[in-house]
């Protein structure tokens, strides 16, 4: 053994020692730091997925960080409920800028929508997607449903019309019909105030009130059409149309027939 080879071995040992030290520290660290749960990993994954979808489909109008641009409003603080409403009814992503973004076919699966909602929720605190117990009207008494009707007439029908059939707003906008709207979307719209709609906070309408309103709308749409055909359900406008078309028109034809057929000479 010469000193040369000893010296060479020593110089090799130093890096090895470093590697060993790093390994020891690394193992020790992993033992000491708190464990990440599997749920958190999923959440992170969901947010990441949401961000990917957001970057592709939303950011061109709303900005890369949801900060808003001239083409689309800021999404900071709108909350997951807003995303669930806008995407869940097919309003978003919008095809083009117009007076009011219309309801279209839903473009994404509920999982994808949840992902984007989770991501947008990270921008700032806002209304969360509600639990079923907050909006499903099961178990309401008749009186409570009737009270929901009174609440609807007081708060909603000024724009959405009688029993939520829809109504016109200035500049080509309109309050849409609520006939085919999901319960959860009604709840979310009330809480987030999409587009022209004002927002109703929990101080104004409690969850219980919203449930009663939803219960009333469901009940009203399940009611039979008392009194016969609705003929367009446009109130006195359709009634006036039909009384002229069928009433005056039809009876004029009868009158024509009566006058045409004179008495036969005997």
């Amino acid at each position, binding site marked *: 053994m010469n000193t040369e080879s000893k010296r060479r071995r020593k110089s090799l040992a130093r890096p090895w020692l470093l590697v060993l030290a790093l390994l020891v520290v690394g193992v020790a660290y992993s033992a000491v730091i708190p464990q990440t749960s599997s749920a958190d990993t999923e959440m992170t994954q969901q947010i990441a997925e949401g961000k990917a979808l957001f970057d592709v489909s939303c950011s061109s109008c709303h900005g890369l960080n949801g900060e808003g641009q001239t083409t689309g409003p800021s999404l900071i603080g709108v909350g997951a409920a807003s995303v669930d409403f806008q995407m869940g009814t097919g309003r978003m992503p919008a095809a083009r800028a117009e*007076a009011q973004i219309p309801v279209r076919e839903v473009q994404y699966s509920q999982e994808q929508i949840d992902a984007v909602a989770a991501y947008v929720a990270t921008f700032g605190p806002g209304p969360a997607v509600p639990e079923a117990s907050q909006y499903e009207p099961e178990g309401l008494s*008749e*009186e409570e*449903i*009737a*009270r929901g*009707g*009174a609440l609807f*007439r*007081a708060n909603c*029908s*000024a*724009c*959405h*019309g*009688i*029993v939520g*059939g*829809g*109504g*016109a*707003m*200035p*500049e*080509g906008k*309109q*309050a849409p019909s609520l006939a085919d709207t999901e319960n959860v979307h009604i709840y979310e719209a009330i809480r987030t105030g999409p587009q022209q709609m004002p927002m109703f906070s929990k101080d104004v309408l409690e969850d219980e009130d919203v449930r009663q309103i939803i219960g*009333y709308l469901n*009940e*009203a749409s399940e009611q039979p*059409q*008392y*009194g*016969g*055909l*609705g*003929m367009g359900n*446009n*109130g*006195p*406008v359709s*009634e*006036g149309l*039909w*009384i*002229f078309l*069928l*009433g*005056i028109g*039809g*009876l*004029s034809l*009868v*009158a*024509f027939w*009566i*006058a*045409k057929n*004179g*008495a036969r000479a005997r």
Partner: protein
Amino acid sequence: MAKPTTVADEGRDVLNGRPAVHDKKHPLAGSAAAVDERLGVGKITKFGLRKVFPDHWSFLLGEIALYTFIVCLLTGIFLTIWFKPSMAEVEYDGSYQLMKGLMVSEAFASTLDISFDVRGGLLLRQIHHWSALLFVASVTVHMLRVFFTGAFRKPREANWLIGVGLLTFALLAGFSGYSLPDDLLSGTGLRFADGLIRSIPIVGTWVEFFVFGGEYPGGLIISRLYMVHILLIPGLLLALISAHLALVVYHKHTQYPGPGRTENNVVGYPLFPVYMAKAGGFFFIVFGTMVLFGGLFQINPVWLYGPYDPAKVTAGSQPDWYMGWLEGAVRIWPNWEWHIGSTTWSWAIFLPGVGLMGILFTALGLWPFIEAWITGDKREHHILDRPRNAPTRTALGVAGMTWYGFFWIGGANDIIATRFQLSLNDITVFLRIAVILGPIIAFFVTRRICLSLQRADRERALHGSETGEIVRTPEGNYYEDHVPVPAGELHALTQHIQYPVLVADDGTGPTGVAGTPKVSRFRERLSRWYLGRDIRKPTREELEDAHHHEAQHAIGTGSPEEDVKVPEHSGRH
């Protein structure tokens, strides 16, 4: 009345060879005689039953109005049995579950009870409302018929005025009626009426307090409207309808021009049995149609609208159709308002709401007198005008309908916006222009059409109708053969009176003494505008000349010179 039966009995007796029993009286003869001796009905009945009416479908429009009024009376009696005209608040406890436990007025609760808890109540309510809509509609259409055919002319001006009164009360009957259920929609209509009242300068607020017994809505208006709806207006309507019909009998019915029809006769069938059958049958058809409407088509679903609350207004609130044009006028009117000191003068409601109604009813009331003044026509008229022969009147009527129609569209602007995906603002801008330009365009187009029809009538009278046969003359000319129109049609085409344009005078009498002019320059100009464009109807000489001409073609004895003219002649038509 029973005479035909008696005759038939006697006839059978004769056939059977049995001696006719002449002293056997009809079982009702004794009582009929008794009634006649005391009340003198025989003379009236004889007169009434032999009354002759002319046949035309448009004469039945007024009958629709009469019959729907009767349907309204009958169904209305049923509704009064259950309706409670009170604004006292009660807790609703009927069968309609979506109102359960809500505090509503007694009027609203009883309307729900009629709809859901009274047997046949909803049907009767719906028949009543549909009939009311048809009542006002048929009154309006009947009035248009009278206007366009000139049936309002002397001697019927008074009856036209009664008709204007009937239209007014029909509107009030409808409005007071649909306000009664005290639902959210009718309450909104009442609020609208309240706004109209308030907009009247200076006195508005006082009138409002008088009508509502204090500040709107108060607690009185439903019971007051109830009195108006079931007592005051039906009473006035009944009285006016009686006067209206009595005058029709007194003046005799007008008739369209035709062979044998003159200003001194009425060609048609007697009331009994022909019109008894026709009118009676038509009554049941109208009644039946209304029952079908009431049974098949939902109207005024107050249970959906909910109870009235002045704090609530729903989108899509419209009045019944006959108030729609005023609603539309208010919707599209520019926001004209004065603020003087601490006062507000709201012209944006007063002008379209109160002003337009005033203009329409004043124009309707004055029209017969204005027209007579313009034409200088003082004759009696029992033969109706064909609308083309009064082109300016017809054009004015169509212009008026266009004007009304655009305001009407305005009343449904929100429905149009949502159904046709249009902007409310665009509709408003369009209608503001259309209510001014539309009637002007309609006036000129209609008058042009009327004059063209007059020209066509003249052509047809002079040259007859085309046979579709092309005749070749020995010289090789071709022309289409015409046959003269039948005498009856020729009469209808040429019977109308064409009034000369009035000529202004300076009032100088035949003796050269100056006085006030009978016809002013202004009246002459108006008369020229009104009458000056008529296409001259053919004179007797022209007609005879033309027929002579045609006759020569028909028998083929035209002289060579005349035959030369044929191509030109046929080329003219």
